[in-house]
């Protein structure tokens, strides 16, 4: 059996491609954040009293932080060629991603039950749009993580081939960063 390998140049190229993708994702989310800030400046009355509870958001922050930790572990282990450990780390990241989505769904359910819908006002419009797109990205990420975990379990990754796990790490980092901005803009400030 000949395992798939890649040159260091190829690994660098793949990472470069992912950075370009992240740049475009950053522009996508920046447009939403910019709009949210503009809307808030135009309508300060929407924030009094603060319309969102912080509790579940903090839980999700912890979940996201933990998932970044497991993701970083997966990248490290894949590079070292410890494919089985990487598989475990990738699976945990996927599970934490699902947990993140579950907590978010619970939060949505509470808000919808309380009559707070996307159409309620601009604040909730922005809130559902941004968290919705973040959730969609996490969902896609969970799918890719599952595939990568399966591949790692099969022993696909080793010191000469690990770029898929590397770039997944970059992508997951962006999702964490977007969440930090969401936390700041919608829950704290």
């Amino acid at each position, binding site marked *: 059996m000949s395992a798939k390998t890649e040159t260091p140049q190829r690994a660098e190229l793949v990472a470069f491609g992912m950075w*370009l993708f992240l740049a475009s994702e950053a522009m996508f989310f920046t447009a939403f954040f910019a709009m949210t800030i503009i809307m808030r400046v135009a309508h300060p009355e929407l924030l009094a009293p603060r319309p969102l509870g912080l509790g579940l958001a903090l839980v999700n922050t912890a979940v996201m932080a933990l998932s970044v930790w497991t993701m970083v572990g997966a990248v490290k282990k894949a590079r070292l060629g410890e494919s089985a450990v990487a598989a475990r780390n990738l699976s945990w990241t996927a599970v934490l991603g699902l947990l993140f989505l579950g907590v978010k769904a619970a939060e949505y359910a509470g808000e919808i039950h309380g009559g707070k819908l996307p159409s309620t006002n601009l604040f909730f419009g922005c809130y559902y749009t941004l968290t919705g797109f973040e959730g969609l990205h996490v969902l896609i990420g969970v799918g890719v993580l599952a595939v990568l975990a399966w591949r790692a379990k099969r022993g696909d990754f080793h010191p000469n081939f690990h770029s898929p796990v590397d770039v997944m790490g970059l992508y997951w980092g962006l999702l964490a960063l977007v969440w930090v901005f969401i936390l700041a803009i919608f829950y704290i400030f």
Partner: protein
Amino acid sequence: MSETTLSPSSQGFFRRFFWPSDHKVVAYQYFVTVALFMALGGFLAMLIRWQLAYPGAPVPLFGALMQNHFFFDGAGRISPQGYLQLTTMHGTIMIFLVMIPLLTGGFGNYLIPLQVGARDMAFPFLNALAYWIYLAGGLVLFASFFLAQGASEAGWTAYAPLSEVSTATPGSGSGQVFWLIGIFLAGFSSSLSGMNFLATIAKMRAPGMTWGRLPMTTWSQLVTAFFQVLATPVLAAAVSLMFMDKVFGTSFFLPTGLHDSDDQLIGGGGGGHPLLWQHLFWFYSHPAVYILVLPAMGIASDLISTFARKPLFGYKAMVAAMTAIMGLGFVVWGHHMFVSGMSPAMATGFAMTTLLIAVPSGVKVFNWLGTLWRANIHLTLPMLYALAFVSMFIVGGLSGIFMAATPVDVYIHDTYYVIAHFHYVVFGGSLFASFGAIHYWFPKMTGRMMNNKLGLAHWAISLLAFNGTFFPMHLLGEGGEMRRLATSTEYQYLQPLQHWNVFITHSAFLLGAAQFIFLINLIYSLQKGEKAPANPWGANGLEWTIPSPAPAHNFEKIPRVYRGPYEYSGPEAAKLGRDWIAQDEEPPR
């Protein structure tokens, strides 16, 4: 994708044409799809012209065939809603499904790996995926014609609140939702292509292919790719927000207190900003103008230098100009919004940046003229198209400067002057450059030359009919004829100008008919064209060092590059007894 999977003969038909790993096959997919959408967009334009010349008259043939369907009423006339569908979808198709995919997906895909000396794009899988996403977007837009209420009617700019309020016009219902989905997909595809192009140009150049030795076509694709990666996502965000408004009842672009004709309140919470749509839309769509023209500028530079048999004048200035256009291109979007009531200070700022962008554009024009100055000019077909590009681009560029000045723009905003301006740039400019590119690289793609006589007829009639179609539109615009107006004859002040509309329509029909000459030439040359040698034009680029048609995976051995692409008639070439020297030829002793 590892190098070992790259043997095309081992790939089945399905693999080869449905999920190709060869950038050239992806380019052909784009070319064919673009041609079909161009035919559709052109047909819509012909219907628009019929209505403008003969308002209220039944459309011959098609009116009878499609009575009560699509754009026609029971008598085979174009209905008012039908007319708005025509203008909206003509613009949408020509920009998002024709020109952007033609210049980037078509020429970018075909030429970048060949010109940088690579076997394929950086990410062949992503490349194939980008094509299918583009096609999906195109099919969604196409499907919207068949909806009960018809396609979008809000213009290709989809300004809120007309596009937002589902009851405003039939096309603002599901047709607009389809429009949003189609644009999202087309934009996503364009972003993915841009990433691939950037990565390929930045990281996969052959040894010796320094930044200063890249052909201008590839340079222009690199600059364009920045727009595709960084500006297109903002359009994706904008259409996502409008989608939220239409489907989930948010009110990002709907103001407070908007009522419909039955005095019903529209837009739930309200408080949104219709102008926010314009800002987000133009933040993308002005850069999109440069996506539409920069690759054409690169192509024209290659063609002009080759057929002037002279180095490109001011290579570094050309690159600097394109980079300046890219930088400034991100901060000029407000000039589309001078009449929106923006603060005069903002308008002045946007007017200044817009006037400033004329400087690098002028630098490019003077460099082309400098290349032609005292050159040994060969008036081949590609060169004729390139010269047509430069001439038409000058006209379109100059009328652009008029509109950059706020006081002038307020007068001509939304008139036919604007229509004349951007057709001069996009049709007279980019499309003529594209025709030049097709004639130039056709031998490399097919191994055959295009027919010269048919090509000459197409060039001459197109150029003539193009000017007959679009030049008088300046006069209509100055006379006050507004765009998207279906029956200008109903306005007394426009009646004296109606003869121009008839003249324009006849020219447009001639222009449309001339494209059949191109089609015939294409089919004829594919079958019966003269066999092409590897380097029929005596050009220097790496793509001319390999056989025609270009074999799968391009280069048997990755070339080593010794010089720039424009060293025509130089001392090194003279030593070889010719006026050209390929980029990878070892320096002669």
